[in-house]
């Protein structure tokens, strides 16, 4: 299609007319534009967030009081299983891919992702995968109920939903692998001249590293679930002890995927926070190179700690020692990152708009999740914590006030760039404070419950656990309800937000995205950014 060369700042609304952009449903079904695909991923992930959230509301309703009042034990197990699967594979991971799609090309000065049609396929696999997974509620035996971790032999006891689960996982895995390949190829090949690796924004760095993790471990998950499939249908005995197989081998293979998976879910969050905190401190990120190396160290270490999810299976003493030491070691680069973010704030000029509020909540609360993680690393103590609500508290601190709050920080930060309008700041602050306060009401007491002896994945409990469960459930209902403000705020912004003046929605924001008009043109950087623009935006 014809391209008129533009001078510096003129990626203008005229583009929309030259574009021959398809309209109506074809624009979305056949999308190859990174902005459209990014939007689809984000909308999909928001839908899945509320789906997984609805499951959580039923879980907390059941756990509100001792005794069974809402669902039976089998349905409860399906709820916890589906909550985990939907949140991890449907909400968090696609949200990160959505942000990657929107921001990576813009931040490196590229006109689009390297493989636009592959990009389209990667997205469109997901609605089909989740239609398959969610429809398992309707088959005989109902939805899978063996936990999102799908351990055999238990998972093999669930009837018609089992193959649906396996095939849905395969589809999601393929989507992630193809997306990750796209990100790597884009970053390695399409950076604008002058955009060297060590000048890239940290969000791009964290996504580059995350992509390598995805390519490395999603096939491992595929292998694990395929072996379970053949055990069930084709008479193999990979995990069947009676046939000479080993149920624990599944756990090793699963967690070899599973541990890097949790870093896949958090590393882009580290990237977002590394953009937002400098912007709202009006000060560059402290220790840019240290942050890159710390991220790479975390990614490397994430491959050698998997058995800390398995300390109680009967590992030999040497394995317990190795995995304890390796797990404790991850605290070092993670701590380095926390210190660098703090040093970024130090002697800055801080303001507290919603992106910064969410980033600061991330800093506090993810750190608390990191502390409980350090406690969990101590093997003898872990024998008391494993499979209790202490673990549930830990991973919700790192995944909700960690990953989810970082996603929200990113959306609040970049929404004006996407839409060209500013959102209702007051509503954003309400969303923040309700989320931050009720998140803690929901999950902090779960530390107590775990320490006091309450196992996880149980629909009913002894009466001494009733008090804190009630508090947690109240927090859950309030937290869940307050999330409705988020899509409402976004919709209101798109419909009637105040147009943003200039390119820079936030005074301290730096980066190539802030050199473009708001909203960013449908095709941006058709002419590469100049050295002056790159230098202005350079993270350090």
């Amino acid at each position, binding site marked *: 299609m014809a391209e008129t060369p533009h001078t510096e700042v003129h990626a203008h609304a005229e583009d929309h007319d030259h574009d021959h952009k398809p309209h109506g449903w074809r624009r979305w079904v056949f999308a190859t534009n990174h902005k459209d695909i990014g939007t689809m991923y984000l909308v999909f992930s928001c839908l899945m967030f509320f789906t997984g959230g609805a499951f959580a509301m039923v879980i907390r309703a059941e756990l509100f009081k001792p005794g069974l009042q809402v669902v039976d034990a089998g349905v409860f197990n399906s709820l916890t299983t589906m909550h985990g699967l939907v949140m991890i594979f449907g909400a968090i991971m696609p949200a990160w891919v959505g942000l990657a799609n929107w921001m990576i090309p813009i931040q490196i000065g590229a006109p689009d992702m390297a493989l636009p049609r592959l990009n389209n396929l990667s997205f469109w696999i997901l609605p089909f995968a989740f239609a398959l997974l969610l429809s398992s509620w309707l088959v005989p035996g109902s939805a899978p109920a063996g936990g999102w971790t799908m351990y055999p032999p238990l998972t093999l006891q669930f009837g018609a939903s089992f193959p649906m689960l396996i095939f849905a996982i395969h589809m999601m895995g393929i989507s992630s692998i193809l997306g990750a390949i796209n990100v790597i190829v884009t970053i390695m090949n399409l950076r604008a001249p002058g955009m060297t690796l060590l000048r890239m924004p940290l969000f791009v760095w964290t996504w580059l590293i995350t992509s390598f993790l995805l390519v490395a471990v999603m096939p491992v998950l595929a292998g694990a679930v395929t072996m379970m499939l053949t055990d069930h249908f084709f008479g193999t005995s990979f995990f069947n002890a009676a046939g000479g197989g080993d149920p624990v081998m599944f756990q090793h293979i699963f967690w070899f995927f599973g541990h890097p998976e949790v870093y896949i879910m958090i590393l882009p969050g580290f990237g977002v926070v590394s953009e937002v905190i400098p912007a709202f401190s009006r000060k560059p990120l*402290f*220790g840019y190179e240290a942050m890159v190396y710390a991220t790479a160290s975390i990614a490397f270490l994430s491959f050698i700690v998997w058995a800390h999810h398995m300390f109680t299976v009967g590992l030999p003493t040497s394995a317990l020692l190795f995995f*304890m030491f390796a797990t404790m070691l991850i605290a070092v680069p993670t*701590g380095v990152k926390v210190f660098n973010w703090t040093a970024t704030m130090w002697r800055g000029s801080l303001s507290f708009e919603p992106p910064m509020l969410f980033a600061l909540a991330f800093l506090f609360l993810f750190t608390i999740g990191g502390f409980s993680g350090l406690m969990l690393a101590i*093997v*003898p103590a872990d024998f008391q914590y494993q499979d209790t609500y202490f673990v549930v508290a830990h991973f919700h601190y790192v995944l909700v006030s960690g990953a989810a709050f970082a996603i929200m920080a990113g959306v609040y930060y970049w929404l004006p760039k996407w839409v060209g309008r500013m959102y209702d700041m007051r509503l954003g602050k309400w969303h923040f404070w309700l989320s931050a306060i009720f998140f803690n009401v929901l999950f902090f007491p779960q530390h107590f419950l775990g320490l006091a002896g309450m196992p996880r994945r149980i629909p009913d409990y002894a009466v001494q656990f009733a008090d804190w469960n009630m508090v947690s459930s109240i927090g859950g209902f309030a937290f869940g309800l307050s999330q409705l403000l988020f899509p409402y705020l976004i919709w209101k912004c798109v419909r009637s937000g105040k147009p943003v003046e200039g390119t820079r929605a936030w005074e301290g924001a730096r980066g190539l995205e802030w050199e473009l008009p708001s909203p960013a043109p449908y095709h941006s950087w058709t002419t590469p950014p100049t050295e002056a623009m790159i230098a202005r935006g350079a993270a*350090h």
Partner: protein
Amino acid sequence: MHRARLGIRPGTWLSIAALFAAALTASPAWAEDPPASSGWGLLNLPVGVTSISKEVYNLHMMAFWVCVVIGILVFAVMIWSIIFHRHSKGAVADVTLVHNTKVEIIWTAIPVLILIAMAIPSARGIVLIGDDAHSQLDIKVTGFQWGWQYTYPGKGVSFVSKLDERSMAASDLDSGISPYSVPHYLRNVDHPLVVPVGTKVRLLITAVDVIHSWWVPDFGIKKDAIPGYVNTSWFEVDADKPGVYRGQCAELCGRGHGYMPIVVDAVSKADFDAWVKKEAAAEKAAAASASSS
């Protein structure tokens, strides 16, 4: 732009922080056994009644306090910035404060040293827990959906331990029976495991269907029960701590996962010997009458 003012003076913040710190350090609840009856007071691990449980408790509290101290230090710096380095108060950013290799090395090295200090006692704990040799009593524990089978090899004692009737009845969906009316709701069984105090007991743990996990918090031990494996675990209840100790299955095992508790009755050695004789005789009689009818 948007000004976020709190309107609280630095001196007031410091007083609040001081009060909070005082409350935290003055509270004895962390160091002693919490009152077991009160739900609100159940905040911490039990110290427990075995050498393992006490070692575990100490490691837990060590890790906890390290985290609290580091947390207070790091959060203090963040809070200081949030209060004193505000744009709305006219703070001007020091854009030269962008990197410092020396400081990066220091805040990498110090955590490494702290971790090594934590790892040493933790490694000792692993070795202690792994030392199940020279046991004085072996018991085979078999998990199934949904209960536990206990076998005392060579003693002629083997029985199934399942959730007690009253808990079972009250636990149904919309049972109409209040859990508060059931003693030890969901933590009571029809046939508890009996062990002698002051005796090193080794458990041989397995399962017949799916993975379960045997856990008694007061003993400080948890070990998965896996089909095809025999895992070992050991404990010795302090001689001066006979009593009833309760735990639960700790690995999702299906619908009944929350309904297969563990109850251990730790009795004196003499009482244990008497119990074994009685139990063996009762089982022999039951087996004889079952085969003759």
